[in-house]
């Protein structure tokens, strides 16, 4: 169990980093409570795996400190840090039984056999592996093997933190679904600090209490899934989270009001604009746009059926606007207008939300 603090962490894979791009991690600080569920989310190359490896001790950072419960572990090995890690691909002993695979991390630490048995059965039960304990791991399907990997990560009760590096990438959607909620349930039950790395927003948002959104080696925003959805602080977060992402439209601000398509648009924050930005954008998620009798006149370009809702792509001369329309709602044929929900429409100045 551990509270994790990262102080001014920087890392470069070069011996002598010169330019900004040479840094895989560009000076970041974080404070994570003990027992929380956290996610590192970002596209390939954003630095999330580097950060994970720095926390686990596989990489010694170029600069900064890592504290576990106030103890400086920057130079400690992964073993000394007492962490468990689950990787993208199952890491198991094929020739061993499921039972022995799950028991391995415990026996390795000299845990007494009765205690091993208790723990193994408990974790196997949670992961619905109890019927297969005597089977050889090699005979299991991909998701069965990944369950063992998860089980091996979760079986020790003395670990400071459990880290997951894209653990569900190789799993089919319907099983991904089951394992994801299982993991969430397990976290709720064992309350150990968990850090989950992924490029998949659904996994990050549904698993974590706090999500760290990363880009180009920097943290763009840290927030609860609701904060990231409703108040993205940067257009990148607006775009990256949500499917489809936030509509971003060129705009001006005049007299405290945003102006798009020659119309004044009610927003949450235009009043705060002080007039310094080079680029101004209006951000509104497709969930917060609706068809209305008046508003911004648009032409309907495309309607895609997503089952429980439809994604409608519309066009105005000044930009493309997407809407999410619930199943069974009518879509106007022509003369369509759209309106934005003022409580969820924000102005961004050079990418950052105006505050």
């Amino acid at each position, binding site marked *: 169990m551990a509270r994790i603090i990262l102080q001014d962490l920087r890392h470069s894979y070069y011996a002598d980093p010169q330019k900004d791009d040479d840094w895989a991690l560009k000076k970041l600080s974080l404070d994570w409570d003990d027992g929380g569920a956290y996610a590192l989310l970002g*596209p390939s*190359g954003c630095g999330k795996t580097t950060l994970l490896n720095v926390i686990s001790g596989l990489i010694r950072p170029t600069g900064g400190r890592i504290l576990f419960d106030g103890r400086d572990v920057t130079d400690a090995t992964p073993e000394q840090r007492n962490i468990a890690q689950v990787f993208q691909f199952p890491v198991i002993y094929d020739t061993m039984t499921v039972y022995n695979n799950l028991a391995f991390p415990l026996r390795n630490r000299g845990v007494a056999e009765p205690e091993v048995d208790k723990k193994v059965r408990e974790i196997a039960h949670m992961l619905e592996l109890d019927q297969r304990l005597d089977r050889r791991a090699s005979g299991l399907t991909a998701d069965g093997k990944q369950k063992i990997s998860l089980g091996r990560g979760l079986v020790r009760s003395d670990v400071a933190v459990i880290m997951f590096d894209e653990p569900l990438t190789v799993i*089919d959607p*319907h099983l991904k679904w089951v394992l994801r909620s299982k993991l969430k*349930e397990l976290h709720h039950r064992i309350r150990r600090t968990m850090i989950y790395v992924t490029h998949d*927003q659904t996994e990050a*948002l549904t698993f974590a209490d706090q999500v760290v959104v990363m880009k180009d080696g920097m943290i763009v925003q840290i927030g609860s899934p*609701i904060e990231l959805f409703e108040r993205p602080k940067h257009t990148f977060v607006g775009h990256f989270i949500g499917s489809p992402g936030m509509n971003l439209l060129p705009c001006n601000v005049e007299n405290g009001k945003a102006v798009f398509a020659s119309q004044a648009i009610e927003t949450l924050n235009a009043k705060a604009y002080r007039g310094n930005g080079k680029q101004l954008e209006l951000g509104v998620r497709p969930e917060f746009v609706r068809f209305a009798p008046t508003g911004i006149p648009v032409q309907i370009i495309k309607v895609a059926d997503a089952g*429980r809702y439809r994604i409608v792509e519309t066009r105005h001369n000044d930009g493309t606007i997407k809407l999410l329309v619930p199943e069974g709602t009518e879509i106007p044929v022509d003369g369509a207008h759209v309106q934005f929900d003022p409580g969820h429409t924000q102005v961004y100045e050079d990418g950052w939300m105006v505050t």
Partner: protein
Amino acid sequence: MSLELRNVTKRVGADVHIHETSLVLEQGTFNILLGTTLAGKTTLMQLMAGLDRPTTGEVWFRGKNVGGVPVQKRNVSMVYQQFINYPNFTVYENIASPLRVAGVAEKEIDAQVYQVAELLRLTPMLKRRPNELSGGQQQRTAIARALVKDSDLILLDEPLANLDYKLREELRDELPKLFADRDCIVVYATTEPAEALLFGGNTATLHEGRVTQFGPTSTIYRRPNTLLSAQVFSDPPINVAKVSKQGDEIILGEGVKWRAGKAVLPLPDGSYTIGIRPHHITPTAQKDGAATLEGRVLVAELSGSESILHFNMNNQTWVSQSHGIHPFPVGSTANFYVDVDQSFFFGADNKLIAGNA
């Protein structure tokens, strides 16, 4: 002008990879093979391409039996999940390669490479080598190579599976546009129901080597012929339970019952299997006549825009998916409302007998 599988089977030793399958894919259509890993998607594609021969049955293309025709002699392109490019070639040469093999004139090659590169936004990368590209760009290069030679049949085997979420979203949007004004047959394999829905076109649902249903994608989604097809085409998984019909009532276990809707009322009394997609079970009643399920919350997944709530009722786990934020504490008891008109009823043979259209 079509591709036809006629009573095709594929066995490897004692294992049946494809049970007897007949399928007709028309020219100019986008067809999706939807199913889990090992459902038989790749095997079917290999049979279609001529990379593999069926154990029994025939493959016909444009009115000809192409069973004995080697793949090189057929005008087929294939894109795999793993990005496959020539590592020593530039992007330009990678895209040009099928045209060079076909002996197309240099000037024509140049024109076509630029055209398809433009379409896939690869123009600035034409001089680079694959290892200097991102995953998305590498896969776009592989797709460009498949598109450049005006193939009659283009097979895409989970081409987006190894890409980042956002890139996948982008390419999902672009792909259908690329094929919109082509005459070829496109076959696209995926494990994701959402992907099938967004592409539209036609979908074949696959399960353990069988095509369970084939037709327009939205029809298959809204009117699955069997419980199996409904399960293959639901993400999150569809809720399934036993119910009994008695007169004008539908009874689901102890204490849960509702008035039979128009579609269900004519059914004879007896027991049925019901299928309810998670988004038709919500924490607030959407309309009158909803059935109420009282359950104990097991997991609450709140994505910011949606709430996915797992709850236990009658010793069974149910899943509700709804808009907005519904932060029920784990372990609490809550009411969930089922839009009963949207449920599917399956008979003893698991065939659909009533349900929404």
